[in-house]
């Protein structure tokens, strides 16, 4: 068993992103790193992983009292890196290739690797799937595959850059199980926005504007209101204190059916027979791959029913009326900020306007941007230069600009820091007279606003209850991997 290795980070700087960061990281120690979007957490992770080099300062590797500069070490053998998106990290074309890639680079002979791959696949429940493409696996399975492939290389240190944020509670627990198994053999750095996860670490570091603050034991840090306020740390959410809306808001067009799936089937992915009335806020929860996104996409006609039919605003959805129905609905995709197609923030929000209208940058238009927390000075900025939170706000502003009757949100808060989460949540809460379908893994994000909760599992809505009654179904929701 490996013991006693230390990474000593001394006053490192990188461009204007990392500004004199110092800390020690011991093998066997789990550090949680919190901080707002754009504070430099991922850049620090890349510096530690050796993917980029610090401009000044030094990182030293201490192994049994021998001190070596970090750049003189075969870093990939000592440190592993797991990112947020499993589908973007997979290297192998098959499960076996993925598991074997690092092992072959370590110089292990081919036959031993072959044996080890079979064993590894069976430990993560992928036996018999070794020759399958990783793209056939669910998000949770893929992340477990990537984590196992990296852990198989037995790194002394492991960085998880928001590696658990896309996963439901069940998939997250599976990965945590893998991490706990190697807890004594590897130092782990968990970059996260999730205070609940951070609480399980040994030490809490908070990053802000390229600087790092050591806050010691996370459980104690989360109890200190002064520190919490200073660094915008959210306490561990307590659903007992989180009350759902007491009385549902009274929609203008009360009792008017706005969405109706009549025995609709979408291949084998979704089967639904439900009605939503105008002005309702429906929280849609469920494990990854259960059919939640298919449900949202069905409303905008991106998925057509293979059986049954869908009525939107009283009209049967068909290819002839798709354009007019799409004007009444807006879908905010998962990580919508990644997929902005306008050349600038302004063009993204006012996409589709005539050239003449676009040229007229009126005060009203700029004020609209500012209402979403996008300063007017950013109007001409290309979207790719914005932070994650800003991009998400731009996507939301673009979706709401046409004042749709139905708003479809697919995990709009994923990967965002607490400040951005609060401000986007506040914007959504303010929306009135709008029917909202909100997909999430975390019920706590929607409880204050939701009227109804749908639990989707294996392509079926298995639970439809009023938000006020969620406690009665807590066990069922938790068993499905919903955080609540």
């Amino acid at each position, binding site marked *: 068993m490996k013991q006693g290795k230390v990474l000593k980070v001394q006053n490192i700087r990188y461009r204007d992103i990392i500004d004199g960061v110092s800390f020690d990281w011991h093998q066997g120690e789990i550090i949680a790193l919190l901080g707002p979007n754009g504070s430099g957490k991922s850049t620090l992770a890349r510096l530690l992983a050796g993917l980029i080099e610090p401009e000044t300062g030094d990182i030293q590797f201490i192994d049994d009292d021998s001190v070596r500069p970090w750049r003189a070490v075969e870093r*990939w053998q000592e440190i592993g890196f797991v990112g947020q998106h499993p589908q973007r990290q997979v290297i192998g*074309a098959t499960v076996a290739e993925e598991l074997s890639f690092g092992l*072959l*680079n370590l110089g292990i002979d081919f036959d031993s690797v072959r044996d080890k791959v079979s064993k590894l696949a069976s430990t993560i429940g992928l036996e018999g799937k070794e020759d399958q493409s*990783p793209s056939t696996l669910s998000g949770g399975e893929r992340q477990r595959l990537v984590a196992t492939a990296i852990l198989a290389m037995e790194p002394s240190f492991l960085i998880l850059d928001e590696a658990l944020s896309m996963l439901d509670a069940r998939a997250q627990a599976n990965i945590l199980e893998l991490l706990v198994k190697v807890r004594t053999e590897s130092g782990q750095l968990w970059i996260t926005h999730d205070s609940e996860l951070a609480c399980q670490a040994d030490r809490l570091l908070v990053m802000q504007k390229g600087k790092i603050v050591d806050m010691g034991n996370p459980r104690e840090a989360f109890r200190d209101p002064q520190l919490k306020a200073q660094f915008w740390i959210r306490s561990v959410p307590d659903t007992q204190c989180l009350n759902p809306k007491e009385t549902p808001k009274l929609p203008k067009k009360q009792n008017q059916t706005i969405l109706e799936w009549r025995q609709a089937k979408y291949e084998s992915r979704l089967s639904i027979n439900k009605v939503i009335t105008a002005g309702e806020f429906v929280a849609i929860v469920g494990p990854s791959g259960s059919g939640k996104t298919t449900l949202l996409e069905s409303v905008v006609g991106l998925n057509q029913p293979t059986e049954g039919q869908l009525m939107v605003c009283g009209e049967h959805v068909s290819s002839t009326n798709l354009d007019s129905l799409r004007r009444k609905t807006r879908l905010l995709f998962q990580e*919508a900020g990644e997929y902005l197609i306008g050349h600038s923030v302004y063009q993204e929000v006012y*996409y589709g306007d005539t050239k003449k209208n676009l040229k007229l940058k009126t005060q009203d238009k700029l004020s609209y941007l500012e209402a979403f927390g996008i300063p007017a000075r950013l109007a001409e900025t290309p979207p790719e230069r914005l932070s994650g939170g800003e991009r998400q706000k731009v996507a939301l502003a673009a979706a709401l600009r046409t004042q749709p009757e139905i708003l479809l949100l697919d995990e709009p808060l994923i990967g965002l820091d607490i400040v951005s989460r609060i401000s986007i949540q506040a914007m959504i809460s303010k929306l009135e007279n709008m029917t909202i379908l909100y997909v999430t893994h975390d019920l706590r994000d929607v409880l204050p606003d939701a009227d109804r909760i749908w639990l989707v599992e294996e392509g079926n809505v298995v639970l439809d209850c009023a938000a006020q009654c969620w406690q009665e179904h807590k066990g069922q929701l938790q068993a499905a991997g919903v955080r609540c």
Partner: protein
Amino acid sequence: MSLLMTVTHWQGLVLTSFILLGLVILSRTPFRLYRSLAVVLFWMGLFYGLSAGWVWSEDKSIWQGHWSVKGLTQGLELLWRVLLIFSLTRLYSAVTKPLEQGMGIAYFFNPLIRITPKASDFALLLTLTLRFIPLIVEEALILWKVRILKGEWPTSWFKRAREVMHLMVPLMLLSLKRAEELAENLMARGYCSGKYRPLIVQEKTAEDYVGVLIIVVWGVLLLILAKTAQ
């Protein structure tokens, strides 16, 4: 097999036709899969029939020629060959997933890897392509959906082309980002030139050996028939 088909004569083509029919029945692929070949057959038949069937004597110009039975027969034989190659390829792609095709090609590089590390790099390139293309297609699909939901798709071809060009910029940016991420992942897992070897865990079954035997016998028969017909 495609190479052997170019040297064989009508006897070999008859043999291959029967084998193809047997394979189609064995694979239980529906006949509609081969329907698209009819269009190819028509145009190629027209081309080969017209070009190979038209003959003229040495002392005359091309426009003074005429259609000959021998020439038309040659054109028909050529068409038969092409049709068999296309049908076999269609059958192969219908029963073999692109992933398996790519892995199979990469697997055949294994003996070469012992000779030169470049073969290993090339095999890895194949594997990465297999992985990267679906990822980019996925990203392109999301961008397409985003665009579709932003407003009506224009009816004029010029405007449509402009819209597609407009989407190419974010797609390029995303592709570059994904490529960079992939390069970083390779670095983080210690990629070194020559170390990669394609790994297929699945054990070879009796059916695989029977398949190899049939292909070998088929190939040898084609060679023999080509020799005896000369």
